[in-house]
């Protein structure tokens, strides 16, 4: 415990692919041809893309070495707030790799893909049950895509009622994708401040909600890790003016089986399967962002939708005239759905509820253990995460960035920093339920060490990280003189 988790070890440098390759090598087993060759007309053909040529062992070592410069959840604690970096079970990879799933073509006749159709149909039902919503589309490719789907649905719903509205209410704590998604549908975001408790006050919503406002996009639990206590009242206000309530469900990990999103006035909501439902984050995706709606919005869900026929077989149907249309070429990120489905089946109702309880337990435990050391933005019981700041470190000019970088030397992936924007120098810490008490205690130890260093030897933080393959990188020049290809 009194020893840092982070240490220095041997890693290997590795050149860029094209510095490594040499003409005449190939790491791929080119199939033999069993047909006559019939060259394309020379006018059409080039001599192939200028790819470097490597042997199989070159390729294997290249990516093996690169991987050792990375840090994943399997390496250690990754308390990246708002991203729910929970452990991704290995069995889910086994399931997604079953040839029947991984090698199946999306345009197979329904009779030849009942397995995938059933899986998707059941997953839709599971997600509806978990959120308390009525209907689900699995098509969106990630959270932001789910938001877009949701806003498109809001837009289509209002349009059908002959309403064209120009604005949408978005709290200042919202994730950047919220306003960006709204803008894609032509909505102008109206920003609303959260109150001193870090949540939305009904009166503030009432003050801006009007007939030109499509509704509200809120995140619950919100990005400060707090539950929006006034959600029901806010929903009433919005509904009273003919608006709809969109909920960003990226933080669903806090409330599975605990909060009924359907009951509290949410009309449409998206989930992040790659967060709450444990599919691996893949270095930035792929994700999956199912959109869940109440009955009155079901007609607007993306198509195709899966329907169960009288003969007990499933098929895709396009026959939903009010649908917002298609969001991806085919049926969404099926590979991610397989993992989420496997996770839900492995957990069951009790398991999911326990996951949320332990996620909240872990977050509150960290909050309590750390709040005397780091400034806690809102000292209230939190949900899945809590937001600290660098206020206590001002004296020695230590910033959140410095704290984040130093955490790497201690063997941790840093938390989310400088978000949400309402907390200057935010340190947003989401441990998730898969961290043990020992892991949390060791993290607390590291954070307190860092606080002490910040006070006594701030230079150490300014120099950090010192253990990683590289030290602090010059992001300014990278943006000023972009070098995006080699």
């Amino acid at each position, binding site marked *: 415990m009194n020893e840092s988790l982070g240490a220095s070890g041997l890693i290997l440098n590795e050149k*860029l692919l094209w510095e490594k390759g040499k003409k005449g090598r190939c790491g791929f087993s080119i199939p033999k041809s069993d047909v006559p060759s019939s060259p394309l007309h020379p006018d059409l053909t080039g001599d192939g893309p200028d*790819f470097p040529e490597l042997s199989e062992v070159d*390729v294997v070592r290249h990516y*093996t070495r690169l991987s050792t410069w990375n840090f994943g959840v399997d390496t250690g604690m990754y308390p990246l707030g708002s991203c729910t970096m929970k452990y991704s079970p290995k069995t889910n990879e086994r399931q997604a790799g079953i040839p029947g799933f991984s090698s199946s073509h999306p345009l197979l006749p329904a009779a030849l893909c009942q397995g995938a159709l059933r899986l998707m149909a059941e997953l839709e039902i599971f997600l509806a049950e978990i959120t308390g919503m009525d209907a689900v589309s699995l098509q969106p490719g990630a959270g932001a895509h789910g938001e877009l789907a949701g806003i498109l649905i809001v837009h289509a719903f209002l349009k059908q009622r002959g309403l064209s509205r120009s604005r949408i209410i978005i709290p200042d704590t919202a994730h950047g994708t919220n306003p960006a998604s709204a803008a894609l549908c032509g909505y102008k975001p109206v920003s609303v401040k959260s109150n001193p408790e870090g949540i939305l006050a009904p009166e503030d919503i009432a003050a801006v909600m009007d007939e030109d406002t499509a509704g509200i996009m809120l995140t619950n639990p919100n990005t400060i890790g707090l539950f929006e206590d006034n959600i029901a009242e806010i929903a009433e206000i919005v509904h009273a003016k003919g608006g709809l309530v969109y909920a960003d469900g990226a933080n669903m990990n806090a409330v599975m089986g605990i909060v009924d999103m359907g009951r509290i006035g949410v009309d449409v909501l998206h989930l992040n399967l790659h967060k709450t439902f444990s599919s691996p984050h893949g*270095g930035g995706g792929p994700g999956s962002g199912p959109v869940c709606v109440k009955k009155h919005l079901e007609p607007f869900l993306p198509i195709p939708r899966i329907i169960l026929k009288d003969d007990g077989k499933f098929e895709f149907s396009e026959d939903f005239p009010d649908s917002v249309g298609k969001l991806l070429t085919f049926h969404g990120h099926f590979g991610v759905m397989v993992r989420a489905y496997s996770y839900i089946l492995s957990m069951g109702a009790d398991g999911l509820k326990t996951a949320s309880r332990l996620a909240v337990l872990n977050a509150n435990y960290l909050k309590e253990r750390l709040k005397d050391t780091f400034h806690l933005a809102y000292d209230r019981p939190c949900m899945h995460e809590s937001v600290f700041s660098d206020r206590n470190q001002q004296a020695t000019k230590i910033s959140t960035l410095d704290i984040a970088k130093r955490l790497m030397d201690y063997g941790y992936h840093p938390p989310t920093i400088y978000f949400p924007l309402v907390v200057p120098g935010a340190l947003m810490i989401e441990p998730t339920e898969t961290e043990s008490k020992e892991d949390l205690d060791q993290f607390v130890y590291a954070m307190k060490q860092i606080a002490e260093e910040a006070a006594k030897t701030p230079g150490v933080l300014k120099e950090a990280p010192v253990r990683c393959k590289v*030290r602090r990188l010059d992001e300014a020049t990278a943006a000023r003189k972009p070098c995006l290809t080699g």
Partner: protein
Amino acid sequence: MRYFPHTKEDIQQMLEVIGADSLESLFSCIPEECLMNHEMNLPFAMSEWELNHHMDDLSAGMAVSPGYRIFIGAGRYDHYIPATVSSLKMRSEFLTAYTPYQPEISQGTLQAIYEYQSLAARLMGVDVVTASHYDGATAFAEALLMAVRKTGLRRVAVSRLVHPLYRRVARTYLEPAGIEIKELPMLESGLTDISAMDGSKDFAAVAIQSPNFLGCIEDLKKAGEKTHEIGALFIAGFTEAIAYGVLKNPGSLGADIVFGEGQSLGIPMAFGGPGLGMLGATSEHTRNLPGRLIGKTMDIDGRPGFVLTLATREQHIRREKATSNICTNNSHCALTAAIYMASLGRSGFRELASLNHDKAAYLRKQFASHGFRLPFDSLFFNEFVVEFPEGEAIYERLLDKKIVPGLSLFSYYPELSNCYLICVTETTSKDDMDMLIREAIS
């Protein structure tokens, strides 16, 4: 539950530190009316072994090779994937990391995606490529939006031979924003009638796919020139990336913006997703690109390194003014594609592409020599259209033989009733093709 590290004692001690007397009480702040007033109705938790059994059963209901011979492409292609690609992409440092916000601890992902951007740029013939999009269709929609932003014009022209599903996704993205989409008709030859643009103006862009949805190779050069004549941006794209192992790339033929689907590059078909949305452009569009970009830079000791860059385009900085709402992308698919491209190399990639064409050409000849009508005589890559004679129910008969002889085009192009889009890749053996013909004529 094996995923939970908490012992009863742990929970007790932690509750004490928090000052709560039970796990339930952690949620006491939540108003009564928000709580779920029933237990979730979900299947009883399965053991790892029950799950394996269940999933094996489910997947048994799927038609895949070798049990079935499947000749469908149309946006998803069955290509060989080396064991190296499958095993390297599973390195947990890649798989279980997230977006590389913290570069010092994410250099593996960053260099890999920087290399992906570079190889993809060479493949597409552009100056810059984004770190990835969800799939070819959203890359296409984003390409159109780029043009609209760049030109300030709110009309785009799209070939009717761009993948029909891509066009529907584009409509979903563009219509609410009130952007008008004009459709370019198809010629007898199965190519786009670019002359339909003659004299038109105020178009942000003209978009063409090659090989197009019917497998025909478009004259991008000509289309590009026409497009530029009318002052629009030329957008070119593909659904089958392998084609550019032999074909001249879109950039070299004048495309300003290039979109495409990268699933063919070592990514399993997986019932349609996840795939890889590829989007690139000439350098003047760099700061107008949607989504993540990785850039090369140096650390304070002068060592080379990589970072996410030009973030001022993105939602987390610019919010509603961002060039897109995308956040999580399909990074792991881009990594996979990079490993695949690196494994092939230029010569291997070219050879593989030629093999795809050779095989498709063989099957097409077979159909021809057995008197099937081939509606289009344009040059093609690894897909082509064949007509099955009216009423013979050839398709159904082949299905019974566990052969899926292609995709019926009727629902996409009503005028092409009885026509099927047939795809052949390096995974299709001569025997498979001969068997298809044999059964088709029997």
